[in-house]
């Protein structure tokens, strides 16, 4: 049974359709990225998943439990951060944790201490949250979301406000959770390079519609690659390449040529260039990134 099943999830406000018949499934231990330009409906989707806003249509099952009918049982297995991790500023970090621990079964003091260590807040947990930096609040929010050992973690832009080291740390943490404890994680973000490093799959949303689901490993293992040849006589090289790769587009930028070719033809083509008396200073494969795919799917607008 999939951990999270979303069927025909739709949100309409007035005539506006914010999320349009979204259907998606994910398994335990998987990290799924929700990617989309501003206003695509990522936050709206997460809010609907956790019942903060009502669904106009559709169904959400968490570990087989319908969230509309078994809200309390379903939510007991979910940890969530929506947009900012807003906590009680006039309380200490520790009091915040105590507060939320009372709302879930089986969270002991020991578990609280453990999670405080884990998110790296041990030194400031007794301070008031009002004195925390954004990154520290993000960590505290993560502690609240994780303290009751949820099976499903929903994070709306969790890297917001974290420093590069913090982002890296978060990435490692989340991967560990997914690999070792089989937690399913949904992350929404704008940072495509982040998503690429963290996620197993990426779902791309645009104007409320799911326009594509991409397995990240597929992109890396793509057989074709963009290859850049750095040569001393580009004119000659272009002619040669044109004859070798009929039809392929060749971009020339000063002494660099860019073509899209199957990876296994790189040695052969390099050899041909050398044989024609062209000096080759460098051959680089340009990895096809999630960004390319994203722009291809969403039709060019990078946002």
């Amino acid at each position, binding site marked *: 049974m999939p951990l999270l099943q979303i069927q025909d999830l739709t949100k309409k406000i007035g005539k506006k359709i914010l999320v349009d018949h979204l259907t998606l499934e994910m398994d335990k231990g998987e990290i799924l990225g929700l990617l989309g330009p501003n206003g695509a409906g990522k936050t709206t989707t997460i809010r609907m998943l956790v019942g*903060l806003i009502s669904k106009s249509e559709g169904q959400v099952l968490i570990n087989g439990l319908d969230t509309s009918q078994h809200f*309390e049982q379903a939510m007991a297995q979910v940890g*969530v951060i*929506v*947009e900012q*991790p807003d906590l009680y*500023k*006039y309380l200490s970090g520790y009091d915040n944790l105590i507060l939320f621990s*009372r709302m879930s079964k089986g969270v002991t003091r020991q578990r609280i201490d453990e999670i405080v260590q884990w998110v790296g807040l041990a030194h400031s947990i007794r301070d008031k949250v009002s004195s925390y930096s954004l990154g520290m609040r993000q960590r505290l929010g993560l502690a609240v979301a994780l303290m009751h050992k949820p099976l499903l973690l929903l994070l709306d832009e969790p890297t917001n406000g974290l420093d590069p080291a913090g982002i890296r740390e978060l990435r490692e943490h989340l991967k560990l959770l997914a690999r070792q404890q089989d937690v399913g994680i949904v992350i929404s973000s704008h940072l495509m390079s982040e998503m690429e490093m963290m996620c197993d799959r990426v779902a791309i949303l645009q104007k409320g519609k799911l326009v594509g689901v991409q397995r990240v490993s597929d992109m890396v293992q793509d057989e074709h690659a963009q290859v850049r040849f750095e040569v001393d006589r580009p004119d000659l090289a272009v002619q040669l390449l044109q004859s070798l790769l009929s039809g392929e587009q060749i971009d020339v930028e000063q002494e660099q040529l860019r073509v899209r070719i199957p990876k296994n033809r790189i040695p052969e083509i390099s050899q041909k260039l050398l044989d024609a008396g062209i000096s080759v200073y460098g051959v680089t494969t340009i990895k096809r990134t999630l960004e390319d795919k994203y722009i291809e799917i969403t039709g060019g607008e990078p946002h």
Partner: protein
Amino acid sequence: MNLLIQNENLKIYKRKRTWILIAIVALFVLLQIINLHTSGSPAASEDWRAQLEQENSWLTEETSAPDALNIEIRQAEKQLLLNQYHLDHGIPPQQSAWNFAVDQVGNVVFAISLIAIIIAGEIVAAEFASGTIKLLLTRSASRTKIYCAKYIASILFGLALALLGLLLSILFGSLIFGFGGLDHSYLYVSDSAVGEIPLLQALLGSYLFHLPFMVLTVTLAFMISAAFRSTTFSIVISLLASVAGFVIAIAMNGWDWTRYFVFSHTDLTPYIWGDPPVGEVSLAYALVFVLIHLAVMHLVSYTAFVKRDVT
């Protein structure tokens, strides 16, 4: 559920602001008692009989004045009877400072309610303002449970303030009027006759029977807080309504239409003394009338709180 209420209490009492509000209540009670002490002391003179007789003749004049309000006439008549009782039984009135303390309970509960309104007006709306509502509603507790826990915590806070008021008036009263006064009886007027009950009982009863005012105003603030999610709106509207209701209920005391005015049923002390302000209105009627208002307010705020989207 218990834990949820504990959580709400933690959020209330861990704030400095709450303790400032509690200090204001303590100060108010103290000022009331000091005020009674200073205004009541001249009657300690030897010729208190002459003073009371003079006061009685003023009061008689006042009641026959053509522009006298209902409430003024009623109060004057009561005072006449009480003064006469003092004269007849040879009790000097300065010992009746405690009597006044009982009579002031309405004001104390009024002040307490205004303070409790601030907490109740915030208890839901502030969660929306700070964004914490998102975490609160995405744990495994239904919105209904959160709603109930918050309402119970608001009422409990009002009750705690009332208890504090009661204890402080006994404490300050004993310190200022002397502990001996507690043995006296409270004098009241019912059916044109003066009766006596033990003072502590009167004080306690008076607090208890004034509580509907607190419950009503706290519920009003809570309703606006939960339904409209605005702290300022809920506190301002509820404060205005409470002050207006309090004043109108006093000014219009005894008028027939007040049987349909909820604030006229929030001071139930007349039923202790058996002296209802409007004929044919029973304690049960007053209670049911107040309860209907509470139910309607909850219907509005509960529906809004449970149904509306949290964005």
